[in-house]
């Protein structure tokens, strides 16, 4: 009798059910996406800091090595490309962060709407990944020619 109660206790302490396998997998996804987004925000912040102080130097240096002589025309293109790349990376991290939050809330509050929202954010994340990968594919194919 006592043993039975002891076995039940951990689950019933706050009237919560044990998490099932799917919930565990969802929380695992949330944990890693949160880690990625936090590290990513940190890297992004340090890039912003570096660029604030010596962005012009770095980018004009890159422009000069990539296209010697024509860096005057190439420099604005490079700046625009940097901003587009940075914006897309920020979108990826934003979607991952939102998905992670929605997953945790959805599992803990047993709210299917939150979980649906999480998968919507994950879908958006994969769309940005496709755009990134398409750029990479186009660049590599262009390189092959």
């Amino acid at each position, binding site marked *: 009798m006592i043993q039975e109660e002891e076995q039940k206790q951990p689950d019933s302490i706050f009237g919560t059910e044990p998490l099932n396998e*799917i919930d565990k997998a969802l929380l*695992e996804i949330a944990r890693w996406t949160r880690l990625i987004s936090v590290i990513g925000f940190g*890297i992004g912040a340090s890039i912003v800091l570096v660029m604030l102080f010596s962005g012009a130097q770095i980018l004009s240096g890159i422009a000069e090595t990539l296209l010697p002589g024509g860096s005057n025309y190439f420099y604005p293109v490079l700046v625009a490309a940097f901003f587009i790349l940075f914006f897309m990376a920020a979108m990826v991290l934003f979607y991952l962060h939102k998905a992670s939050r929605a997953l945790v809330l959805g599992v803990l509050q047993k709210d299917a709407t939150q979980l*649906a929202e999480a998968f919507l954010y994950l879908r958006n994340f994969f769309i940005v990944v496709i755009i990134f*990968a398409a750029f*990479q*594919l186009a660049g590599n194919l262009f*390189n092959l020619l």
Partner: protein
Amino acid sequence: MSEVQQSQPDTGLYKYIYNAARIAGIAAIVSLAGTLAGVLGVFTKPTTVAPTAVPEGFNEQQVQQLAQGSVYISVALSVLLSVLVFYFLYRFSSLAQAAVKEGQQEKLQLALRHLSRYFKVWGIVMLLIVGLFVLSLLGGMLGSLFAG
């Protein structure tokens, strides 16, 4: 009982999981194609490594070979990483779509496990990047300390 289990096929949550899985499948294929095209580029058009200043006492040819070798090592690592990531993402995509169509919980659980492994791989890669960055910073600081 979990909300995922309560939710019936064709209702909101399942639809969102299905859509995410479909897009994830496309993302996996495009990413792998991008990497393979890059590898093809490296082997068909070997990039000439920029001639580096060879320190005295080192054979110039050996240093060049070492630089070329490091290119191949990084290519091999990136291929390994992208194949691993492709496998997890593609398995998530196909398993989740099948699970929603057939209404099978086990498949959905397996699919979500693969998605979590996909993010785990990226998380570990990011931790490694941060670790290497910190190491190089420390190395630079120590170097300037002893050089000065």
